[in-house]
Structure formats: structure tokens, C-alpha cells
């Protein structure tokens, strides 16, 4: 596909459309090309798992998708909106409204309660206090933590913390939920819990993109995309409404 195309129409249902994305880290002495031309489309309602060995560029890809970082080259449309040349605050708003993050290390704010953690994106989204509280409580109930709302993260188990993180990620009803090794720090039981939560979310119509080493989690995805050395090298398990699209040559 050509670079610098006109904005992709949102009507095609693509939540994520990446065209020729490259990312180069240049520290002055070392130049690392983390992504070497990624073309990726994720459509509404898909559950995509990105797999690949460590150092393959998975996390870099996720940072770009989540607008935490900007590509060196290539075009990226998030929900039909071109993400380029946006100011810091505009990027912040995009992250707030369009993307929900779940991290391997949970990344909950330790001094505040679960409820307040879930309220945080709602606060940034300008939701008034009463509605904020209601919505956060609703989200926590949804992940089965209605009785843990006033607990601080340190008083929760790993699985519970990750469920709070998922509630937080979904609070603003984002276009896509991004998860980076969400089960990586959990024992198998808790990991299984989290997988079920993801599966439920998907069934309810959410779009998910998960980076994982966990074969069990990848199996539940509607589509698996394999990355190696900064390139998409393979995919399987095509599911959901759309087929996988990638331009990288098959090995």
C-alpha cells in the first residue's frame, strides 16, 4: 500500500489501520530499527493476539498503536482518524477516549483505592464526579470486584489487580483494548481468570489486541499475528468479521 494515503474511511470498520509503519530508535551511538514496515488492520469486534519472541518489536508496536509513541515513518489511522502531527494534549485525549491499556505489571496507582483507579480515566475524560463514581463501580462489578472497591492495590492479589486494570481500561468504553502480556505476572489460575474476562469482553463486542507469550490466551483470539524482527511474518486463526491483512512476505 502507498504511504501518505488519504484518511481511511471509518466506514470500513477498521479500528486500526497501519501502513508501512517503521520505528527507529536512535540513541546517537546505537541505531535500532524496531519495526521495519508494518501493515496491519484490526477491525471492530476482532480479538487479535500478537505473538513473537522477545525483542521482536511487539511492545514497540503496542506503544505506537496506543499513541504512547509516534512512528518514524508510515501512516496510522485510529478509528479513521490520522494520528500524526497531533499535539501532546491531543494525543492524550486520543488515548483517553480511544484506547484502554492493560499492562503486564498492572500499573495501578498504589496510594488510591480500586475505585479511584478506575475513576482516573473518567476524570481525565471530563466525566462529572457522580457519574464517574457510578461508572467506576459498575466496571468493577463487571470484573467481579464489587466488594473490593475501597481496597488499595496493595491489599489485592495479582489477579484482582489485573481485573481492576481491565475495569480501568474499559471505563471510557474505548474503541480498542490494548493488553501487553496481561497474564505474564500471574499464576495459571489467575491467568485463566483474566483470559475469561477478555473472552467475555470480546463476546460483548469489544475490540481487543493482546500481546502475549501465553499460548492459551493466543488460542482464544480470533486472529493471531506473528511478529519477528520487526516484521509481520505470519498469522493464523482468522476470526471475526475481517481477514488478516499483511504485506510482509511469507517465509
Amino acid at each position, binding site marked *: 500500500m502507498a504511504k501518505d494515503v488519504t484518511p481511511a474511511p471509518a466506514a470500513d470498520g477498521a479500528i486500526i489501520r497501519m501502513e508501512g509503519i517503521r520505528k527507529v530508535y536512535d540513541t546517537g551511538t546505537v541505531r535500532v530499527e524496531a519495526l521495519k514496515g508494518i501493515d496491519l488492520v484490526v477491525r471492530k469486534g476482532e480479538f487479535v493476539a500478537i505473538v513473537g519472541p522477545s525483542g521482536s518489536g511487539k*511492545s514497540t508496536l503496542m*506503544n505506537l498503536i*496506543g499513541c*504512547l*509513541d509516534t512512528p518514524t515513518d508510515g501512516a496510522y489511522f485510529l478509528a479513521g482518524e490520522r494520528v500524526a502531527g497531533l499535539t*501532546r*494534549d491531543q494525543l*492524550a*485525549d*486520543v*488515548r*483517553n*477516549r480511544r484506547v484502554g*491499556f492493560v*499492562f*503486564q*505489571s498492572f*500499573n*495501578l*496507582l*498504589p*496510594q*488510591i483505592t480500586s475505585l*479511584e483507579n478506575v475513576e*482516573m*480515566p473518567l*476524570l*481525565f*475524560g471530563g466525566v462529572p464526579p457522580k457519574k464517574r463514581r457510578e461508572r467506576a463501580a459498575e466496571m468493577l462489578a463487571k470484573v467481579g470486584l464489587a466488594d473490593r472497591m475501597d481496597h488499595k492495590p496493595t491489599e489485592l492479589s495479582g489477579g484482582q489487580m489485573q481485573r481492576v486494570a481491565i475495569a*480501568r481500561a474499559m471505563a*471510557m468504553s474505548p474503541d480498542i483494548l490494548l493488553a501487553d502480556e496481561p497474564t505474564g505476572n500471574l499464576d495459571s489460575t489467575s491467568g485463566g481468570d483474566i483470559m475469561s474476562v477478555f473472552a467475555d469482553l470480546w463476546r460483548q463486542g469489544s475490540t481487543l489486541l493482546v500481546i502475549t507469550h501465553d499460548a492459551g490466551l493466543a488460542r482464544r483470539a480470533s486472529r493471531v499475528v506473528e511478529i519477528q524482527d520487526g516484521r509481520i511474518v505470519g498469522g493464523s486463526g482468522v476470526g471475526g468479521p475481517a481477514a488478516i491483512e499483511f504485506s510482509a512476505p511469507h517465509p
Partner: protein
Amino acid sequence: MRVVLHLFLQSSRISRKRAFLTIASIAWGTVSILLLLSFGEGLKRQFSKNRNSTGGNIAVMWPSETTKSWKGMPPGRPIRLTLDDVDYVRERMPELRSVLGEVVSWRTNLAYGPKTVNGRVLGTQAVYGETRRHYAVAGGRFFNDGDEAEKRRVVFLGDELAKDIFGKEDPVGRTLLLNNSPFTVIGVMVHKRQMGVYGGPDENHAVIPSTTFKALFGRDRLNVLVIETWQPEEMAGALKRLNEILGSKHGYDPTDDRALATWNIVKTSQINRNVALGLQIFLGIIGVLTLVIGGVGVANIMFAVVKERTREIGVKMALGARTSWITGPFVLEGLVYTLVGGAAGMLIALLLVTPLGYLPIEKNAVLEFLGRPTLSPAIGFVTAAVLGLIGTLAGYFPARRAAAIDPAATLRYE
């Protein structure tokens, strides 16, 4: 702003101990700046009070010798002024606040009962009391125009001289013999710390009406002529005009500033005022530096907090926090620390300085010079402004560092 406030309240729940220490350092800085400035203010006021104890905007002149030739007359001629010249000047220079002449009798015999001392007796006009700050202790008075017109034998005593003669007895109403002539003591001077002295300290002389002096001693030749203007800036012009008037009357060059040796106290006080002001600025700078150290402490702690919360900040950014929502709480935290510390410091300083205002400084040579530390609204204003500035800066720089955090970098690693 509501978001910033919410985030601030959430984050300030932690580390009360650190907050307390920071606030204490700012309070300490505030106390130092306030104490130093109030000390300077007290000194300045005391300077001004001591200077004023001789007189306000006055100049003192001693008739001397000419140094310039004038209308064929050689230099070196003595100039003589008499009590008549006082009236002469007063009539021609109505713009002056007061004009007075002093005639002096040195080492005059003053006797009360068996007690005899030698003292200085000064003859002058009633206006001297106000112009030269000879205020009477309660129960007495300075002599008035009536005393002068009637050549009454009344005497006003300097407080030290009164003590020498009368000891603990109240001198007012007693009869004192001046060169064997009986005089009634009508008043004793309120003690004052005098900075500008000529002839001798005011506390050591006896003052009588010039008319009485002339009758008693048979002399009316002025030792000193004193003029007083309403405003300090009028003095230079007044002295010029005075020399024109007296120069033409007594035949000397009006530009000959040696004919009347002149001490322009207004000029001296200006210098004193500048010295006091300079001292206050110096003390203020020391105080500000102390406060700056406190501010550096606040900034330092805020930097540590930013570092400690790097991941937290990264998370907030990932959740969609705008830059100002990241920086706002830090700026607010710096300001709150500074303002709470500043308020506490002001309270402490007030509690320390207020009792000093009741310090008995009279009769203590050092304290009479130093004065009482005084807090003024200006000092409070300066301190508040410095505090506000330091607080803003102490929050701003750490906040800027927080805003520069790259969320991708902080979230990438475990």
C-alpha cells in the same frame, strides 16, 4: 483546574512527614527574613527618631569670618549677629517654619540650696521648645512668648542637669539661683537619645528666654542661628536666601559659605537615612537568601517526588492526562508548601517580634541605638511576594521535569 485540584488532593494524602519537614524549612526561612527585616526596620525608625531628637528640617549656623572680599573689604572680617537679626530674618523669610537665635553663657553658676554646679545656660525664643524638641515632662512646660515678652525669670532644665541639681526631687516650681539671681524651674526635658549634637548635649543645659538672658548677662550676640523649613527639600534654597539677606545687611558676599559656618542637618539626615536603608536592604538580602535555601529544599523534595512517581506519571499519561494535569498538582504542591510554611513563619515571627515592642529600651545605650524590631505592612508584603515567587519556581521546575517524562519509556520496563 478541577482535575488538577482533584489529583492534588489525591496525591497529597501521602508523605505527611515530608510535607511537614518542607513546610518547616519554609517557615524557618520566613521567620529569618521577617526577623532580619523587622530588626532593620526598628533600626531605621530609631535612627530617624534619634536624628529627629535634635530637630526636624533644621540648619544650624555659627557666625564666623568672611573668606571672600566684598565691596572693597578684605576677607577675614568677623561676622556678628545679634538677637535683632532673628526678628530681621523672621520678617523677611515668612516661608520658614521657624527662626531662632541662641545666646550662651558657659559655666554659669547654678545653685539650689547647698548644691552648686557649673552649667551651660542658653537664651532663646519660645519656638525653640518645639523646633529643638525640648518637650516637658508631665507637670512642667517650656517657656512661652509671654515669658519672653515679660522677661520672666523662668528656666527649663535638661534632664541630666536637673538630676545633677535636684536628685530625685521634682524640680518644677523650685527656685534655682543662676549667678545668684532666682529663677523658677518651669519644666524638665523629656529624655531623648540625641544624635546630632552641637555646643553640648541638650540634656545638660538650662534654657531661659533670650530677653531675660540679655537683661541678666548684658549680652545679645548670637552663638548660633537656627532655621527650620517645612520640607527637607526647601533647605538649600532657604540657606541661599538667608545668606543674601544677611549678606546685604552685614556686608558679606552671599556666596561666601564661611561667613556663617553652616551645619545642614537635613543633608546629614539624608545620608543617615540612606545608610539605614542600605542596612535594611542588606539584612533583607540575607533573609531572602535564607528563604531561597528553603525554596531549594522544596524544589529538591518535589524533584524526588517526581522521580519516585515517574511510573505513576507515565500511567496517568497513558490514561489520557493532559500536560497541565501532570504539572498542575506539582506546582500546586510547591505553592501550598510554601504558603503554609510562609503563613506559619509569619505567625511565629509575629509572636516573637510583638513582645520585643515592649522592651524597655530607654536608658540603655545599645538598645537606644538599635531600637525595637518592628514589623510593618511593607515587610509583610515583601516577604509574601518573595514566598509566592519561590513557591511557584520550586513547583515549576520539578513539574517541567514531570511533563517531560516519556510514558512509553516508563511503561516499557518492569
